[in-house]
């Protein structure tokens, strides 16, 4: 049932060539706008755990409930509900609210609005070949996302020591640096199948 080569291609794809941040453009705040390495890693890890859980739940609901009942048009709403479910579980067991430092009354909505990686992962999980690949896509995609977050935080720490033109300071230089990393990752094309 599990094709080893396919799984390996999936791992390489999720970590490098089809990275959530550099290739799929899913991440926002945690990857591009958070400043310190430690803060970025903490937020990135919390978001990655929720994203992986959301993808697994969304994939399970899609393949075991929506598909057999021919309700696939509810895919987007189900993906969003999976994110909400994963968030509430993470909040309860991992105390992510403190990790993510959200004091807004609608923390879930604030989190989704600034990090589309959650909904992106959940939608992607439901588009895989079957439940197993959907779940694996979510898990390795979240790991790739964490890798990107840490990588970008390191890059931003180096940028902070450099003389950046006034207009490019902050997010623009982050985006351009992310573009350069993405360009480097194109070198791995073919690994990810």
């Amino acid at each position, binding site marked *: 049932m599990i094709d080893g080569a396919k799984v390996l291609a999936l791992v390489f794809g999720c970590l490098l060539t089809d990275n959530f941040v*550099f290739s799929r453009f899913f991440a926002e705040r945690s990857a591009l706008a958070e400043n310190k390495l430690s803060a970025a890693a903490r937020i990135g890890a919390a978001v990655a755990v929720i994203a992986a859980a959301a993808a697994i739940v969304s994939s399970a609901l899609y393949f075991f409930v929506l598909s057999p009942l021919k309700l696939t048009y509810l895919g987007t*709403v189900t993906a969003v509900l999976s994110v909400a479910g994963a968030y509430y579980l993470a909040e309860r067991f991992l105390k992510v609210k403190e990790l993510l430092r959200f004091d807004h009354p609608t923390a879930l*909505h604030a989190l989704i609005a600034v990090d589309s990686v959650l909904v992106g992962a959940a939608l992607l999980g439901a588009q895989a070949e079957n439940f197993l690949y959907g779940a694996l896509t979510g898990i390795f995609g979240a790991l790739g996302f964490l890798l990107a977050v840490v990588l970008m935080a390191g890059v931003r720490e180096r940028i902070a020591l450099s003389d950046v033109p006034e*207009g490019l300071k902050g997010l623009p230089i982050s985006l351009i640096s992310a573009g350069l990393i993405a360009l480097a990752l194109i070198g791995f094309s073919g690994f990810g199948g």
Partner: protein
Amino acid sequence: MHSEQGTASSKRYGLIPLMLAALPALAVAVSGLNGLVIGAAALAAMALASLLLSLVWKFVPAWMRGFALVLFAATAASMAQMAVSVALPRVSAALGLYLPLVAFTCALTGLPDAYDVDHELEDSLVRAVIRGAAYLAALTAIGCVREVLGAGAIFGISLGASFQPMRMLALAPGGLMLAGLILALLRAIQPKRRKEGEGA
């Protein structure tokens, strides 16, 4: 883009997240048509979510409001996706999961400052349509620039064999770099807003 009613959430969010909501669209906005369709879907989803919100907000209990906002945005995004997949099946297939994703994040990002204020139907609808139109214009423009420079065509019409396209712009790295340069350009045009944007 925010209204004068500077609520806690709008100050918290700043300008950049509003722009970032449309960032995933750069993965697929590689042509003018793609940009136009995904921008139109975002506009429709924003208007619809805002309409739903205005109509039923008073009946939603306070503890459910965060959840309700997310659900409204998801419903609006689903409907926008269904409309595009019926009207333009080929473009819808090319846009894939980005169509519901961008429509959803745009609709949701458009909603936050409605959380704290009393909102009249017309006010919130007009604001959502204006914001959606800004997304539509920006995504179409980005799509056109990437299509012209990256593929040597505009809305599918070739610019001639003598034009040498820069393929990188049609790929992910080009999208990220272009987003950075556009943001820098926006700052140059609106220097007063810089501080607000940096608070993101």
